[in-house]
């Protein structure tokens, strides 16, 4: 019974594995564009926006990818021109150590508190 259920679900879901379009060349470009903020829009990425600014940035990113530049280099270029604010992914720099590490630290502290409390009550 269970095997049958699983089989049906599998067939169902497998029909979708063909939906994905395989344009690897665009993958990098789209990945970068989704990570760049459209500075004249309200909360849109350059990928999502059709504004003038966004289309200029899209061209620049395309050209730089064609020149063979790495993802990081392109981000650095944009940051130089526009400041850190333009990139959605905050890099792990001295400005952002606390940003990335504090939640993890809190997680560990939380775990320690639970551990201590259960040990304390386990008589």
């Amino acid at each position, binding site marked *: 019974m269970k095997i049958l259920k699983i089989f049906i679900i599998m067939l169902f879901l497998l029909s979708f594995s063909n939906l994905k379009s395989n344009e690897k060349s665009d993958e990098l470009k789209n990945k970068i564009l989704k990570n760049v903020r459209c*500075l*004249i829009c309200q909360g849109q990425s350059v990928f999502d926006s059709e504004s*003038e*600014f966004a*289309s*200029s940035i899209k061209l*620049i990113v395309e050209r730089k990818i064609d020149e063979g530049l790495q993802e990081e280099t392109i981000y650095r270029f944009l940051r130089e*021109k*526009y400041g850190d604010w333009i990139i959605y992914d905050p890099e792990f720099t001295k400005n952002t150590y606390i940003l990335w590490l504090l939640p993890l630290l809190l997680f560990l502290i939380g775990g320690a508190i639970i551990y201590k409390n259960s040990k304390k009550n386990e008589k």
Partner: protein
Amino acid sequence: MKNKFSLLGIIIFLSFCFAVFFKGLNSSNIYSPKVSEKENIPLFEAKDFNSTAYLNSKKIFEEDIFYILNIWASWCAPCRAEHSLLMRLSENQSIKLVGLNYKDNLDNAKKFINELGNPYSQIIVDKDGTLSVEFGAYGVPETFLINKDKKIIRKFIGPINNEIVEEIKLIIK
């Protein structure tokens, strides 16, 4: 006592947060780019407005003088509004204006200049907007003040007004 310590710690932490938020409220919210570190103007090649020639940035900004780079377009309404102020600035001997025609139709742009006057000693064309990105521009109109060391010392986003003209005049004296 452990409780008193944690209470004190929390009070200190919360006071800190309050202070940060309070200060944060009072500072400006609109993100404008820092021009504290003077950046060099980018190196580029751009098409001339009046001919088919390509001009090198070194040549465009070659004189030992202050320059203004003004990004404009015929389809941009605020550009019309600021144009008369640019004409006024161009009369000043210590400064030259370079126009960057942004994502424009050449005929419309030429009409714009013929109608409103030409304050620019040189006009270059940025058909796809990529040259403006080299300057870190957001769009149009935008104006950059460049000093004799070929560094950008001021960025003005949006149309310039009388205050900005006065500020520029003070700097270029």
